[in-house]
Each structure stands twice: as C-alpha cells, then as structure tokens.
C-alpha cells in the first residue's frame, strides 16, 4: 500500500480541519526563532568581526620593511578583494622654527577599507566638544591631514604650510580619529596623513630608512581566508600578516563572549520551543486516539500506523521548518534594517547555515519530542471504538522524551560550539525536569491531602489539579522549563551582561607609557602627583627573544599555526613581580613564594599563550636579551583577564632573576579625553617615553558590548514569543477536556463566572508551580553558566524567585483564561453535540 500517499492525504486533511495549527505554530515559532537568531547572530558576529577589523583598517594587514611584492596585491584583486597600500615611517616635520618627530602615513585611494577616518574642526578657546565629520577619501596631493598633537607641537593650524622632507604641503584638515590607530602597540604620536603620490617627492625614503610597507585587504570572509592561506605560505621572514584576531587579546575575548551570549540566547528559545512541541503533541495524541482505534478496527496493522505517522510527521516537520525559515528570512531582514541603524553598523549578508540549522532544529524538535509518544498511538486498543474509556497507557513515556533530549543535546553541543556549554545546559534542563517532576508530584500529593470543603473556586480549582494530576504535572513542568529559559536569559542579559560591562569600568586605563627608564620612575610619579592623577602601578620589562625550548633550538617551521609562528617570531616582554596581579589566576603549577628560593629561575606563562606554543609545566625556555642568554623553567600557568586593560605580560619571572639585564618600565593609567593635553607636558618632560593611546580600542570594545546587549535584547523577544507559544500549547493541551467539562457544568447550572473562577485558580496554581520551578532552575543555571561558560561570578538574587512566581501566576492565568474564553461562551448543547 502506498503509505506515503495516504500520510500526505491525512496530513492535508488534518491541516484543513485545523488539527495541526498549534503544533505547526509551535514548530514555526521554534524554527523561525532559531533561524532568525541564527541569521541575525551570524550577521552580527560577522559585523562584529568586521567592526573590529576597523582597528586594522581592513580585514587583513600585510606588513614588511621592504616594498611588498606586487604579486600580493594582484592575488588579492584576483580573489575580488579590495586592496590599498600604506607606507608608514617616522620623520621630522617642520613649521617655522618648530620641529616635531612625527609618524607619517602615506595612503592610497581606498584607505581605509574598514572603519572611517574622522575629521574635526580646529579647536577654539571656548569649546571642548567639536563637531566631528567623516572624511571622504584621502588627502589630495600636495596636502596633509594632521592630528592634534602635530597641531599643538608645531603650533600650526588648517591652512598653514608645513615642511615634510623636501616638500612643502598645506594642512587641510585635522584628524579626530583613525580606524587603524593603535593596533599592536606600534603607533607613535603625533601623526600625519599624506597622499602616497607625494611620497617620492619628499625624498624621505632612502636606503636604510625605517619604513613599514603595508597592504590592506578586505572583502568576503571566505576569500579573505583563502588569501590568508595563500600568503601564509609565501611570506618572507621580514613580512607578516595580521587579522584582528591576531591583534588584540581584548578584542578576541570580547568577540568570544559575544558569540557565547548570542548562542545562549538562541538555545533558550530552542528549549522553550521543545516544551511547546511536547505539549502540542499531547493534544494531538488525545485527538487522534479515536481515529487510530477506528483504523485498527478497519484493518490497519501496528506497522501501518507507525509508518503512517512517521511519514506524516517527517512531512509536517519539513513543511513547518521550511515555513519557519521563510519567516526567519523575512524577520531578520526587517530586523537588520532597523537594528543596523540602531547599532550603527552595516550588517553583512547572512550565510545559509542558519537556515540549515533551523531546518534541523525543526526536525529534531518534532521527531525527538513528538514522534516517540506518537508512536505509542499505534498501540491504541481497537476496542476503544466500543469502550471510549480505554486510554493509551504510556503517552508520556520518559524514554520517549529521553530520545528528544538526546537529540536536543546534540543540537546544543553543535550550536553552542562548545561541548562544555552544551552538555551543561542539557544536564541542567534534564536535572530540572526530574526535580520538577518529583517536586510537583509531591505538591500534588499535598493537594490531595488538603481538600478544602464547600464549593469555593479554590476547591474546584484544586480538584481540577488533582483530577488531571499527570497532565497538570506535565503542563507545569513544560511551563516551568519555558519560564526557566526566559528567566535564565533575563539573568544573562541583565546580571551577567552588567557584570561584563562593569568589568570594563568607565575609567579603564586608556594610556600606556612604555620605555620608562629606571631613573625616571620617581620623576614620573611626581608628574602624576602634580597633575592630580592617581599613581599607577609600574612594571619592569625586559625585551627578549625565545631561542630554545628544553634546549632545542626554536624553529619557525615547528609551528604550522600562523599565530604561533608570529608569537615565536616577535620579541617577548618579560616582567617580574612578587605578587600575582589581581586579574590573573593560577590554573596549573604554583606561584612562587618569597621565602622559598629555587635553584632554577621560575617562569609563569599565560595559559592561552602556552597552549598556542605547545608549552607545558616544567618546560625550560631559553631567551636572548640585550644582556645575554637567560633560562627559566615554567612553574605555573595563569589566566589573564584581558578585559581589564591593565598592563599584563605573557611571561613573568621571580624578582631578582632579571636584575642584570637591561630593563625599562611600563605603566597604564586613565586619562579622560578632555585632559589629553597633559600628554603634551608629559612628552616634553620625558621625551623618550612612548605614549600609547588605547582609548580607541576601549571605545570599540565598549560599543561592541553595547551592540551585543541590544542584539540579545532582540533575541530575547523571540524567546518571549516562544514562551507564549508554550503557554498557549499548555492551555490547549487540556482544552478538549475543559470544553467537555464546561458543557457539563453549565448544563448542571454553573454560571460562567463560577467556572472561570475555578479555572483561574487552577491556572494560577499551575503558574505558581511553574514559577517556582523556573526560578530555582534559572538561578542554578545562571550561576553555572556564569561560572563555567562565561567566567563571571553570578550571585543568585531573591527577586528572580518573586518575579518567576509572579510571571508564572499572572502569565498562565491570563493566557489560560483568554484561551478558554470562547469555551465558556458556547451553548452547552452545541458543545456536547460536538463531543458526541
């Protein structure tokens, strides 16, 4: 027999008859929620990466100290990538009697490929805030754009002509900010921007000049990756390539966390949807019991019914998931339009992956959560056609839902992109279901003991809960799970997010001072005192190059990972200290004790850095410094919280070990931008000290956090929608019984209001149960996620409990009464006729 055709026909008939609306609705919300979140976070994540690429001015930056091979740019263009070239070098710039060592950047059309160059008007005496405008293009030949430091240093303003090498060029604009200003601690103040065409005529570039030749590349992410693979194999030793991920650990860490937040939000809507699907299935089964019994009676075998429903649900799942994806496509488009404006970034086009994830989610949800109980339908006793009281025995088989949970776990692990996070969330929900079930059973038993007398709504409501003990439990658990997901999300959104934001304080250090000489320390502190700046902590630093690991010479060829290659290739900053910094944490080995002197110099490594280079505890590293070779053994690994923007080092040794090597000092402090002029005094007082401005980086990270917060708020709406679907499905799952019950009660003379009150009590109790479950579950889950996945300490708060119960009671009661309103208004005879 052609079961597929029969299934398709039954599916169409059921759809036409409105039997599938709730299930389909739950599924479509789930899939469109997941896919919209997927599409959207895909786009936001891509945008965030691109946004942070603004710090480079492009997606990739190739740098060399000799002119780059034209083949590089050609290759990039062949891959349809945008390119532009830069030349950077330091040089003296003069105006009248003033000379100033300036970082010069000669740029070609197209610069910057990512981010914007902002120009400002020259300052007037009375205004601290000046309008900033976007630059169109680059300086025209014969003109330069300068920053404020050049302006004050040379005492020039817009319209003046300054000497740059052999050329005299007119200042036509003041640069407020450059996108690629402070990457990799290489920037030098002050800065001047000129057109590449003028470069030769300045005669500034001579053999032996310290020049960086750079190629900026931007475009489609896959092509960029392709280009990177291509060029990685061809780079000469004096050339290097960086993407944003290589540039700053702070940005990396922010991006990682952002993507975790977003996938967390997406997962919450999946859980909520799962509960909705499970509930809608319950109703579906109830309504199909008779049909199955009739079919059994008319000669259908168990395997006929099984195949019938398997095909049926695969078709339903596919159709609903497709529909969900279409909705998601539209929703994310609409959303991106207004959100892109809101968050001020251009969102790149999404990939097809989220649609596939959405489809898969739909099928996993439907097949995982509804098929196992559905397949029990085939065991419906045929005798039910004569004896309607014969029910299906194990509609809520644990094994059935176990299968769904297993499928969901797999999905979670995949979607979370982290085994740990996925497993944790799943175990959390699993444990929650078990505990909810047990606790709920206990409460319902208690209701059984407490039988209020009389005919108050309370006694009817309680009686209803008792009578529908198992369905009530299932409803409360599903509602509880939905609410728990919502609450967990609220926690992450508010508490966890706030926690993150507060870790990047308003006054995070935004200026780094490098190259402080040992004898300048005291004078520098006096300078801080004089300018009313809190004395910052100051750290010693010795520059060194890694030569050997366990007495084996280090070779670049040992590191296929370009990131590792780059780390090995560049100079290390070694520091020493007695005490572990507050934002560091030992994760392996031991920090040294001041009174225990070891025979071999000890070294503490940042754990991610060690991982990249394949270093472990006990490895002996040999460095070359200006003062000769030096060896130390790794005795501890530590994590560093880069978000704090404090001075931190990958490698730290015990004090005393590096006493005989040439050291300089480094520090960081917070300087509000309106006091930036102090820096001029600082430069004058300590001409050798290099000031590094990380304000831009901090601003970027802060704005990223803000964007992510908004994105999560949006995603939250979907979870909310899914939450309503759960409530609706939960209410609908007992709708048929309720309709019947209402008809009988009303026939017996019950007033509408009496019934409504009794149901309100029932809904309120269900809601309260769900709220208690949800609040407890969410607090635990929030704590665990904070601790293990996001590395943030979250303290559960009492409000969650109150809010959970309140939302549960009010939400379920309101939705429940709205959902049953029609039932109450119908004439009882009509209802009873329908049932018959």
């Amino acid at each position, binding site marked *: 027999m052609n079961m597929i055709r029969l299934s398709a*026909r039954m599916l169409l008939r059921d759809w036409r008859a409105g039997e599938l609306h709730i299930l389909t609705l739950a599924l479509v919300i789930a899939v469109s929620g997941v896919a919209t979140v997927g599409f959207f976070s895909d786009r936001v994540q891509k945008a965030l990466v691109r946004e942070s690429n603004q710090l480079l001015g492009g997606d990739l930056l190739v740098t060399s100290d000799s002119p780059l091979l034209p083949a590089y740019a050609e290759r990039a263009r062949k891959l349809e990538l945008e390119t532009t070239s830069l030349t950077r070098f330091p040089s003296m710039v003069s105006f009248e009697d003033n000379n100033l060592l300036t970082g010069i950047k000669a740029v070609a059309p197209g610069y910057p490929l990512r981010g914007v160059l902002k120009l400002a008007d020259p300052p007037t005496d009375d205004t601290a805030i000046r309008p900033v405008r976007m630059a169109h293009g680059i300086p025209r030949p014969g003109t330069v754009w300068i920053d404020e430091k050049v302006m004050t240093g040379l005492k020039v303003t817009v319209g003046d002509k300054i000497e740059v090498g052999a050329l005299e060029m007119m200042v036509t604009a003041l640069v407020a900010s450059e996108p690629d200003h402070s990457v990799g601690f290489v920037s030098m103040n002050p800065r001047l921007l000129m057109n590449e065409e003028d470069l030769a005529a300045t005669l500034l570039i001579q053999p032996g000049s310290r020049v960086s030749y750079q190629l900026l590349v931007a475009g489609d992410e896959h092509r960029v990756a392709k280009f990177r693979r291509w060029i990685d194999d061809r780079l000469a030793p004096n050339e290097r390539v960086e993407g944003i991920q290589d540039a700053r650990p702070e940005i990396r860490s922010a991006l990682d966390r952002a993507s975790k937040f977003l996938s967390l939000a997406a997962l919450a809507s999946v859980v909520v949807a799962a509960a909705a699907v499970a509930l809608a299935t319950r109703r579906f089964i109830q309504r199909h019991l*008779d049909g199955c019994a009739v079919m059994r009676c*008319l000669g259908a075998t168990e*395997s006929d019914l099984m195949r019938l429903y398997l095909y049926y649900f695969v078709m339903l799942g596919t159709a609903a998931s497709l529909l969900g994806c279409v909705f998601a496509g539209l929703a994310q488009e609409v959303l991106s339009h207004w959100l892109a404006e809101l968050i001020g970034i251009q969102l790149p086009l999404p990939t097809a992956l989220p649609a596939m994830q959405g489809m898969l989610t739909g099928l996993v949800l439907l097949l995982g959560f509804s098929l196992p109980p559905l397949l029990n339908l085939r065991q419906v006793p045929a005798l039910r*056609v*004569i004896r309607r009281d014969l029910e299906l025995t194990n509609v809520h088989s644990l094994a059935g839902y176990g299968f769904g949970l297993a499928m969901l776990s797999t999905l979670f692990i995949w979607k979370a992109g982290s085994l740990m996070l996925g497993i944790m969330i799943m175990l959390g929900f699993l444990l929650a279901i078990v505990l909810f079930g047990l606790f709920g059973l206990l409460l319902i038993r208690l209701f059984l003991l407490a039988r209020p007398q009389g005919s108050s709504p309370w006694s009817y409501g309680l009686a209803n809960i008792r009578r529908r003990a198992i369905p009530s439990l299932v409803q409360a658990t599903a509602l509880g799970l939905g609410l728990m997901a919502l609450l967990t999300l609220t926690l992450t959104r508010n508490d966890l997010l706030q926690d993150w934001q507060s870790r990047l304080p308003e006054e995070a250090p935004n200026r780094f001072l490098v190259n402080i000489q040992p004898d300048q320390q005291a004078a520098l502190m006096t300078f801080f005192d004089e300018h009313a700046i809190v004395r910052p902590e100051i750290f010693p630093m010795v520059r060194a190059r890694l030569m050997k690991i366990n007495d084996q010479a280090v070779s670049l060829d040992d590191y296929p990972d370009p990131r590792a290659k780059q780390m090995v290739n560049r100079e290390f900053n070694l520091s020493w200290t007695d005490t572990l910094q507050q934002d560091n944490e030992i994760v392996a080995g031991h920090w040294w004790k001041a009174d225990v002197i070891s025979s071999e110099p000890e070294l503490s490594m940042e754990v991610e850095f060690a991982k990249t280079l394949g270093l472990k505890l006990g490895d002996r590293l040999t460095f070359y410094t200006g003062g000769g070779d030096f060896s130390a053994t790794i005795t501890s690994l530590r994590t560093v919280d880069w978000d704090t923007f404090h001075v931190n080092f990958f490698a730290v040794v015990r004090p005393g070990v590096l006493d005989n090597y040439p050291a300089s000092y480094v520090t960081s402090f917070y300087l509000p931008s309106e006091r930036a002029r102090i820096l001029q005094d600082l430069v004058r007082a300590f001409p050798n000290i290099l000031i590094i401005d990380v304000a831009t980086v901090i601003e970027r990270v802060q704005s990223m956090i803000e964007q992510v917060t908004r994105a999560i708020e949006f995603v939250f709406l979907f979870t909310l929608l899914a939450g309503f679907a759960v409530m609706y499905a939960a209410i609908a799952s007992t709708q048929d019984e309720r309709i019947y019950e209402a008809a009988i009660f009303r026939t017996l003379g019950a007033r509408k209001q009496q019934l409504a009150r009794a149901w309100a009590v029932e809904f309120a109790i269900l809601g309260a149960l769900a709220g208690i479950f949800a609040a407890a579950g969410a607090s635990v889950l929030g704590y665990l996620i904070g601790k293990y996945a996001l590395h943030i300490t979250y303290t559960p708060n009492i409000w969650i409990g109150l809010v959970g119960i309140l939302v549960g009671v009010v939400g379920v009661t309101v939705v429940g009464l709205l959902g049953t309103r029609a039932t109450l208004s119908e004439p009882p005879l009509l209802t009873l006729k329908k049932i018959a």
Partner: protein
Amino acid sequence: MAKHLSTEQSTLTNNSQPIIQAYDLTREVDTGETMLTILQDINLQVRAGESIAVVGASGSGKSTLLGLLAGLDVPTHGTVYLDGEDIFKLDEDERAELRGRLLGFMFQSFQLLPSLTALENVMLPLELSGASNAREAAQVWLTRVGLENRVKHYPKQLSGGEQQRVAIARAFVTQPKMLFADEPTGNLDAATGAQIIELMFEINREQGTTLILVTHDEHLSARCSRIIKLVAGRAVD
C-alpha cells in the same frame, strides 16, 4: 452487478457452513480485589447470511460479546472462528488484517474521523488495504446510501442520520462477509433510526452479509433471523 452475483453465489455455496463459531467464550476482568465475570461460556454458531440480534440489559455483556466476536478484544478463555480461522491464534496485527478483509463495523457513536470528509471516511478502509479504486468505490457507496450531494461534507456538518449513512457506506465499501453493528440507532431519533435500519437491512440482503447486531430495540431485534439474549453474561433462551 457481477460482483453482487458472485458474492451471493459464494454465500450460497457456504450456506451450510457456519461462518462464525464461538466456543466457551468467557471474559473476566480483574477489578483489583475480585475477578468479575462479564461473559461466561458463550457458544454460538452463525451461518453465512444469517442475521443475529444480541439483546439484553445494560451491563449484560452485549458489547463485550461483539468485541470478542470481532477480535477487538481477547477472551479469558474460549475460541472464535471467523470464516474458518481461529482468530485468537493470530496476533493483533493479523487480526487487524483479517478485520480489514472480512468485517464491516457500525457503532452507536458513528466513529467517523472528524478531520475527513464523508467521501474520505468511506475511502479510508480501502486506502488502508491499498485498494486502487478507493475514490470511485466510495463515491458509488455514498450514492447508494443517498448522500451523493454530501460527499465533501465533514462529519460535524452532517446530521446524526447522515453520519450513520456514511458509516453504512464505510462498512460495506470493502464488501465484508460479516457486519458487526453496536447499537447503530442508539444515538438517533426513532424516525431516523427506522430509516437507517431499513437501509442497513436492505443492503445487507443485497450483499448477503452476515449480520451481528447489538441492540436494545425490540423492533430491530424482531427483524433478525435469530435473537441471542444475554443475562449477566450468560446466554438464555
């Protein structure tokens, strides 16, 4: 028409053979405390083409007997042969297949699938057995029961009498050898019930179907060739 003839011929040739045989049919139910006997030692032989009325008070075991004879339920002990086959030696699926092949059903509550139209309800048993001409056959049968203008209506859009007509069409569309009817007029008013009974007996005669009818209705039972009266689970004469 040729089909009708062949059916009648086969009924005629089998006329001497009982098509339903039940021996010592007993059904007990465990109430938790005691065993309750619902049906006790029923022996029954029904020849092809016969019509049997099973009568008795509520709770006398009428529906239980029907369920057992049709293989919808399993007896505590005893055997039932349908068309020579010992149905309780078959498993549940084989019995389902046998029902689809040999039996037609009518119920007090009609038992039409609410999501299917009249036509689709009649097509269902044929679709389940994989027959290729389901639509045409169903159409023919709906016309036969006088519902040719109601084929696209859903059960809830049909009156009780119309619903039971659909059920008659569904019962006969597979050309069963036996028809099991459980209080077919129980949900209908007297006039409609009479029409339905008229139609049912008429088609039954045409098709030469063996009829087992559970009913309270004395008029109805009087039209049957034999009456089996049940009192507290036992057959009395």
